[in-house]
């Protein structure tokens, strides 16, 4: 509060140069904000625009020929519905499992003087510096029967050292006497964990769950690497797939034009730009609508570790 008042005071007496600077700065930041939003608004406009009209080009920030057909097409596609289900299942189970692993390690490391504590710390630190890389993961995960299995979404990368440290730092703030007195009352370790520590650390639990959830929702590369069963495709992967299909169609048209072959039926298919836009909106809207409310949990994660005093 004090700082704010002081700042206001400083702004109080404005020189002309300062005024000009503030005007330019405001204009520039408005322009930046517009640039951050523009591509998304453009896609939004296209998604509500008739596919045929979009092909004429020139759709900017408002639909020219309003229609809901694009959404109708996307939402009626049974593949999209199924992928949405897979995405949701992945987000829920993946986040919960990640939290479970990270929380359990954080809790155990809280115990000072635990025999082999150093070994445990070492064990979870090493993977941060060395990783097997894509190909050996590919071979090993296939050996573990994770290829084309739903578990490929949950198990690898479920443990994050960084998140574990953040949870542990939070848990360290909980008075140890609470645990000690519970122990004296005869509570077992599991009871303490479940009945005392977990309820007291709900803020950090929510934060970590949120981080994991967004990461799971947005990931598509793992599907590309390890899954080729369409039943397991996530929404994001379908989006990438649609883009790649549109690109190869473009290539076919290009080739046809270069070799002078008649286009035939190809060109009637590429009307998909508006449909693709609708698919993009459907895939991203859960995040776009909610991130202004949950962003602070992410912001705190960035500043938690990195601002040094």
């Amino acid at each position: 509060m004090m700082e704010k008042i002081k700042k206001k005071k400083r702004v109080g007496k404005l020189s002309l140069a300062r005024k000009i600077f503030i005007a330019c700065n405001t204009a520039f930041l408005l322009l930046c904000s517009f640039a951050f939003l523009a591509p998304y608004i453009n896609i939004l406009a296209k998604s509500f625009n008739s596919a045929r009209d979009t092909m004429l080009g020139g759709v900017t920030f408002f639909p020219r020929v309003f229609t809901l057909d694009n959404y109708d097409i996307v939402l009626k596609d049974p593949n999209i519905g199924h992928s949405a289900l897979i995405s949701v299942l992945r987000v829920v189970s993946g986040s919960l499992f990640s939290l479970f692993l990270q929380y359990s390690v954080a809790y155990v490391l809280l115990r000072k003087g635990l025999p082999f504590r150093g070994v445990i710390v070492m064990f979870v630190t090493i993977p941060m510096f060395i990783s097997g890389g894509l190909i050996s993961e590919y071979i090993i995960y296939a050996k573990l029967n994770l290829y084309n299995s739903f578990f490929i979404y949950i198990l690898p990368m479920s443990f994050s050292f960084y998140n574990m440290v953040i949870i542990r730092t939070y848990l360290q703030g909980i008075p140890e006497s609470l645990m000690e007195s519970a122990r004296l009352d005869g509570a077992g370790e599991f009871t303490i964990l479940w009945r005392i520590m977990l309820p007291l650390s709900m803020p950090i639990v929510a934060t970590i769950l949120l981080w994991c959830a967004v990461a799971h929702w947005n990931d598509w590369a793992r599907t590309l690497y390890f899954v080729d069963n369409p039943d397991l495709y996530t929404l994001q992967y379908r989006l990438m797939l649609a883009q790649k299909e549109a690109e190869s169609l473009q290539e076919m048209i290009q080739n046809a034009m270069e070799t002078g072959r008649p286009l035939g039926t190809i060109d009637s298919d590429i009307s998909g730009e508006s449909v693709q836009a609708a698919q993009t909106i459907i895939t991203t809207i859960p995040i776009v609508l909610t991130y202004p409310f949950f962003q602070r949990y992410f912001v705190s994660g960035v500043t938690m570790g990195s601002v040094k005093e």
Partner: protein
Amino acid sequence: MSELVNVKMESERKDNAQSPKSKKLSGKNSFKKNIPFYLILVPAVITVFMMQYLPMFGLVIAFKDYNVRGGIFGSPWAEMNGFANFVHIFKTPAFLDAVWNTLWLNVLSLLFSFPAPIILALLINEVGHTGFKRTVQTISYLPHFLSIAAVTTMVNQLLGNYGLLNAVLQAVGIEPTFLLEKESAFVPTYVITEIWQTVGWGTIVYLATITGINSDLYEAAEIDGANRFQQVLNITFPSILPTTMILLIMKMGTLFGSSFEMVYGLQNPVAWTKDVIATAIYKYGIGQGEYEVSTALGLMQGVIAFSLTFIANTISKKVSNVSMW
């Protein structure tokens, strides 16, 4: 990554400081008493071992002449004492191109994407109106929360034949251009997309540091007659320098790293066919089954990235006393 090491070390230190007291407590802790803790740990240990340690052993493929029947350990060693795969990388133009492209994109990213958040943070900091400031910040975070699949779809549509870019160009009376079909447009598009996606989120660290600056400093400077620009130059800048150095060290480590998602997403078969190391590993490794060479390439990338971070950290420690570990 650096911060977490720091957080960890600090907390370790704290533990050590308290150890005389806790030693007394733990004296009563027999191994048996601790069994519940080990039980709690079991799922995590198993998962980390299977998912992260087993692939580490798989790295040995880089030195092998891999065949499916022999598997990872049964396959014979590669020629030249196992280094044939690494030699092969340097003899294959496709891999060398990927290495070169990776370096080039990262140098550009260092030049443009790295300073961008600093500038934006300084400008946002100059905003007096809290509501406007918050709104700008929130809007600037949007690209960070979008998946790369959505981002590259938007890039394709923006630059495409019916896209916004050509709409704007036509409105100003310039001939439409088809950037997606121009090979030379790939690198600028990559850099601009990267800035667009990371600049807003990147301001957080800097703004947090700036907020932490003692406002007495500014007041003292003002009394001494320093104008606003001088204040930024002499107070704000030195204050964010340590943070900048740490982020720069981390950036050095990624100089040889490559973003698979962004490059794969932007690639198109018409003109944007450039590969970076990560996409080459995917393409030749998973796509064409050249496991050994791809693993070798990945291993090389990892080792160089780690060395770069290490070197940058050592230099920074000597020069400015800022270090990651």
